């Protein structure tokens, strides 16, 4: 094997493919990155049994071949090379990397012991890369982080015709985002539970591409895999098992009060007031016509209070939240104006975004947040 490739192209491709390599590989070959050169193309693949990543790029291939080298080492090397063409070739059981006056000799791993990468499920449809990344980020923020309830560490992906619904919860908040996509076939209906962290990384790394193809093995088929492809990058992720909670009924539809607050002012105020809310003790919000009062801290502890202009329709309401959850939601709505809808101070509140105070609330994204109540 022998090929030449631009240093930047190589570094980017290696960095991306090496992302999924395990820190402590269960078997030595999984620490490797598989390089395959053939007919003007170079492909790099990594796999840790959960996530597979494969990237293809143009290369000046002199002699086709396949080789397995330590991914971590190759990533470190390619990142540090001078900005000159890189030549990679095999010499017996070694790989030689030459760039400018640098020369590296790397040992190889046995290619025939490397597991076959999972087959990409058949393509189901496409979404614009940037929109997809934004939507995933909005939802993944609400996903659970502790492994005691694995189901809640996932994002549920529901496909129904030309609509994709993403949903995630850690049971204290629930984020749901609808987006349109272009399905390959009509009447497509599928569900998948994708590890939130992986989905977030993947969507972000594919956001540069115009479109991202999403490939989902239909229910029961395949080995519980979802695949994403865009801009020469292709990745598959094993799905989580388990029943994601039914959520549509959890979202209240009738409210006693609806408040609108300019988002930047709201965020600033919550951040300031919660400086005294140690260990995420609650921030209390009192909405009256025209004004929102935020308070944190109580008793002998430090206390803070701030007023923000706000519009209220319906009854006055006092309600308390974990400031971190509130800030996550306010960041996720990504809108100039935040709308909070309440039933009572112990029931979930619905947060959504508006681009202007008198505009309709954005129906595509909803962030449900559970309040905090005083014990006793």
């Amino acid at each position, binding site marked *: 094997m022998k090929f030449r490739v631009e240093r930047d192209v190589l570094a980017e491709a290696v960095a991306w493919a090496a992302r999924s390599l395990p820190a402590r590989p269960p078997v030595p070959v999984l620490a490797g990155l598989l390089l395959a050169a053939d007919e003007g193309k170079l492909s790099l693949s990594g796999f840790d049994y959960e996530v597979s990543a494969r990237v293809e790029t143009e290369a000046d291939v002199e002699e086709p071949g396949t080789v397995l080298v330590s991914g971590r080492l190759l990533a470190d090397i390619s990142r540090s090379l001078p900005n000159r063409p890189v030549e990679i070739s095999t010499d017996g059981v070694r790989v030689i990397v030459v760039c400018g006056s640098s020369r590296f000799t790397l040992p190889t791993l046995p290619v025939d012991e490397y597991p076959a990468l999972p087959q990409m499920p058949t393509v189901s449809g496409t979404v614009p890369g940037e929109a997809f990344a934004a939507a995933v980020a909005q939802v993944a923020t609400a996903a659970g982080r502790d492994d005691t309830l694995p189901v809640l560490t996932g994002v549920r992906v529901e496909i129904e015709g030309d609509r994709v619904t993403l949903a995630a919860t850690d049971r204290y908040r629930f984020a749901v985002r609808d987006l349109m996509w272009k399905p390959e076939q009509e009447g497509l209906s599928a569900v998948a539970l994708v590890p939130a962290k992986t989905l977030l990384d993947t969507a972000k790394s594919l956001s540069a591409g115009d479109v991202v193809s999403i490939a989902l093995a239909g229910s029961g088929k395949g080995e519980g895999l979802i695949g994403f492809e865009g801009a020469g990058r292709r990745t598959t992720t094993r799905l989580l098992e388990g029943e994601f909670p039914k959520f549509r009924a959890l979202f209240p539809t009738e409210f006693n009060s609806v408040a609108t607050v300019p988002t930047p002012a709201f965020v600033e105020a919550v951040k300031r007031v919660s400086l005294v809310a140690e260990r*995420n003790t609650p921030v209390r919000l009192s909405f009256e016509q025209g004004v929102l009062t935020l308070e944190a801290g109580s008793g002998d502890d430090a206390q803070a209070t701030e007023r923000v202009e706000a519009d209220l329709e319906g009854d006055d309401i006092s309600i308390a939240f974990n400031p971190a959850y509130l800030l996550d939601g306010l960041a996720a709505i990504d809108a100039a104006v935040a709308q909070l809808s309440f039933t009572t101070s112990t029931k979930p509140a619905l947060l959504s975004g508006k681009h202007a105070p008198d505009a309709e609330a954005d129906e595509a994204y909803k962030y449900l947040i559970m309040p905090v109540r005083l014990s006793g």
Partner: protein
Amino acid sequence: MRSVPSILHLDMDAFFASVEQASKPSLRGKPVVVGGLGGRGVVATASYEARVFGVHSAMPMAQARRRAPHAAYLIPRFELYRQVSDLVMGLLRELSPLVEPLSLDEAFVDLEAGPYGGLLREGTPEEGAELVRALGEDLRADILAAVGLTASVGLSGTKFLAKIASEQAKPDGLVLIEPGREREVLDPLPVRALPGVGPATAETLRRLGMTQVSQIAATTEDELVRLLGRAHGAGVHALALGRDERAVVAERDAKSVSVEDTFEVDLGDRELIRAELDRLAERCVRRLRAAGRSGRTVVVKVRLFDFTTLTRSETLPAPTDDPLVISAMARRLLESVELTGGVRLLGVGVSGLADFTQEDLFAQAEHEAAEAEADLRALADADDPVADDPEAEGGDGGGEAAYGGPGAPRAFHPGGGVGTLLTVRRWMPGQDVRHAELGHGWVQGSGVGRVTVRFETPWSERGPVRTFSVDDPELAKADPLPLVRGSASAGEV
């Protein structure tokens, strides 16, 4: 050290047993032992009459029964003890805001921090001693009037000496140790009287010929530090000299809330163990909520048949006091423990306490579903008062046969909780009952399908005894009555 003995230590005399005697006229002047009555129970409190036979607290119940076979053996009624304790602590708080409860029946009070503080500081030491003695005697009289029980009071300038004083005052007395009298009081005491000197330390000291506090006091601090280590040696030496700088601290915040049960026989059946765990979780949550707290970490404690003790814990991102959340966590933790061989003890605790609860979306939805179902059931019952409603029964989406179904025997903890499936009622000695005709009484004993009840109240004469079948429909569990008629405590009368 203070020049006025203004630290007060209050200790109720044989508290649990005295409460029982006060509420059961027929037991007054008789030996009474309160504690766990099962094969593995221990004595919580013995009345002074029972102590004559050599029964004392922490003694295995079986041994106590051998020593005092004719004593009355009763289960503890914590609910009542707590009510009485609240009244007593209330009286202490009138003397000073600085009240440090050590248990239900014991507390330190710093009189200098109270309304009499000014007088105590301004007057001469003699006047001060006079005043605190008067306050202590008044307190004992007030306690007797309010709850009908005797208490002992110790007064001194340090916590340690105040406690020694109340021990010497027992029962029903008051002892004041004036500054300057420490040596006279401490010298003859055995070394074990010093807090921090347990069996091991006492043994170390004994080998060096030190059995009395006077001998420790005569030793240099360096010597003791060499023997017992820096912190311990210095601490023991200071106490032996009567030096104790510890301040009275009000409301020491609890760090955790926990409950546990030792079973009469080891539990082997997983279903049964789970049911017991649910009950404990429920009880733990009740205590947590009563204290106005919530917590982040749930701990499950399991002691196996061979005394191996395991604890497992899990921490939530945010605190909760939700029974569903806590029992679900407890169950999950239990699943990770190998229970083969049988379970001797189970416990559920909550730590990482806070005073707010992060509501849980799913738990709340579950509560609402349960409420809606209960409403539905109530509606169905109202429609059809006679019928048992198969619709509602079958529509119970949960479908979980709680407690292993109606047939499963539940040896312990009769009644209470959500379980309505209990088929056999169990009457525990000492328990309060109400008879439809004969009124309030308490269970004297139960066995072979019969239960003996004595009908008397704290304010009545010694009452008569009647025997019933254990499932007599006229007989029902009752709430304890307050010891003093019309006192603010206790439930309905």
